[in-house]
């Protein structure tokens, strides 16, 4: 962890008006929760649906994409990353720092709003708020690592990340049960499902699979990012 790298990364992602990108979906989520509460449909079933499809299914991957690729992608695109890399700092430390920045942003802009929305809907009934809050936190950590890696692998990280989140996790995952096993979103749902006692939250991914998968994906992506940065090349325009 390097505080100077972290400081620059935070400013790059949330500086100026870019924070609104991260705030948009959490505000929609909380707004929906408030609305449901006001019209009196804040029951367990509605909460389960809203949290698993919108909070975990939409807000978490999209926010993850903004934060994960945002802490490194633009810097690689415009070449400013060289300022950080041409320093006597091990590159994996830079990768780790960027990851921690992205993960902390997701804790604030995804996990916390998920908890707040759940609490607004059903208070702490059946541990739903805690379950989804934790699920979003752990899923957010994995997304941070995966999308950070994606940001170092390709200039089209946002497009590919969107395709993964929407097509693979959303569409294919909805139709093909097997695909659900390989979906960060489903792993996050599995945690929410097991922690809350609600019958309205369901997933066919077991905790025994989800937890090792989350750890392997996160650690693996992080190590790979470190290696990518160690071999970071500037090819120039020639």
């Amino acid at each position, binding site marked *: 962890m390097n505080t100077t*790298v972290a400081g620059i990364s935070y400013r790059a992602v949330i500086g100026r008006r870019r924070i609104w990108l991260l705030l948009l979906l959490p505000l929609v989520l909380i707004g929906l929760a408030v609305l449901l509460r006001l019209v009196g449909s804040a029951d367990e079933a509605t909460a389960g649906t809203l949290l698993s499809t919108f909070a975990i299914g939409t807000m978490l991957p999209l926010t993850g994409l903004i934060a994960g690729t945002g802490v490194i992608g633009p810097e690689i695109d415009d070449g400013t990353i*060289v300022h950080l890399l041409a*320093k006597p700092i091990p590159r994996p430390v830079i990768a780790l720092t960027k990851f921690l920045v992205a993960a902390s942003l997701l804790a604030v802009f995804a996990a916390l709003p998920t908890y707040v929305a759940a609490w607004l809907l059903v208070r702490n009934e059946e541990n739903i708020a805690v379950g989804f809050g934790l699920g979003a936190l752990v899923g957010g950590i994995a997304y941070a690592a995966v999308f950070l890696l994606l940001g170092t692998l390709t200039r089209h990280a946002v497009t590919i990340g969107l395709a993964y989140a929407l097509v693979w996790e959303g569409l294919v995952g909805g139709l093909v049960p097997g695909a659900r096993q390989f979906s960060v979103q489903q792993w996050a749902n599995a945690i929410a499902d097991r922690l809350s006692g609600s019958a309205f939250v369901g997933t066919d991914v077991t905790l025994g699979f989800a937890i090792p998968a989350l750890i392997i994906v996160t650690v693996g992506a992080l190590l790979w990012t470190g290696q990518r940065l160690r071999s970071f090349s500037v090819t120039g325009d020639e």
Partner: protein
Amino acid sequence: MTAQAVPTPPATGPATVELRQVSRWYGNVVAVNDVTMTIGPGVTGLLGPNGAGKSTLLNMMAGFLAPSGGTLSLNGRPVWRNHDIYRLIGLVPEREAVYGFLTGWQFVLSSAKLHRLPDPVEAARRALATVEMEAAKDRRIETYSKGMRQRVKVAAAMVHDPQVLLLDEPFNGMDPRQRLHLMDLVKAMGAAGKTIVFSSHILEEVERVAGHIEVMVAGRHAASGDFREIRRRMTDRPHLFKVRSSDDRRLAAALIADASAGAVSLAGTGLEVQAVDFRRFTWLLPRVARDAGVRVWEVSPADEDLESVFSYLITRST
């Protein structure tokens, strides 16, 4: 950040960059072809036309590109995948982009902190003073002119007083005053025993600053020497002139009588003269014309662009 152990200070001895048979290719395209050179203290100019492989070479020296073949080292240590080497290196990349949301002061200070200097504030202050950017240091970099950005990049690169400074086309886009100032700065650092390499496609620029010149053409190391040597090799070559006159045929006959004209041909639009001895030919032409009673309307060098000068150099070096 504050309680960290102060790392060993950078070595203060002279630094040597050594390239041995270094090549770099991208697929079928060879960007740098079998370059061997040793660069020691003082200012070395890397001269060549655009696309000659200068940036590729500098990127390899800076550890931002792996050589496809050969070895590249700094004081005997490899540069590629060796983050420790940056204690010795300051890098000023060609790309203009810097963190626009930071002020000049924050940018240079961040560089000092990333180097874990014992007194980053003092180091940043000194570096900004060296490039005369104190007045604008509290403005965001995005408000800077191109020359100011360049200077703040130089300040960030030299904040740790590196033994080696690598600059990619550093004078591009600067106004004349800023250019002169940066040139003086680079010269002074070279005189102080730093090893400085900068790339440029402008001979005059390199001549002014560099004590030593390495010429790159089409990925190959075409020539090496001080500027007098390079200048001589560039002027001491057959020159091609286009001449238009009142009587081309008569002028052609008069010119070919002298040994300084190697070949004369009549083209539709005038004469093409291959001058073997540049100085004698330029002295000779007006006199011959006058004696022959021919009026010369136009004399223009047909191959004065850098590209053809360089390609001549490379055909001679092989």
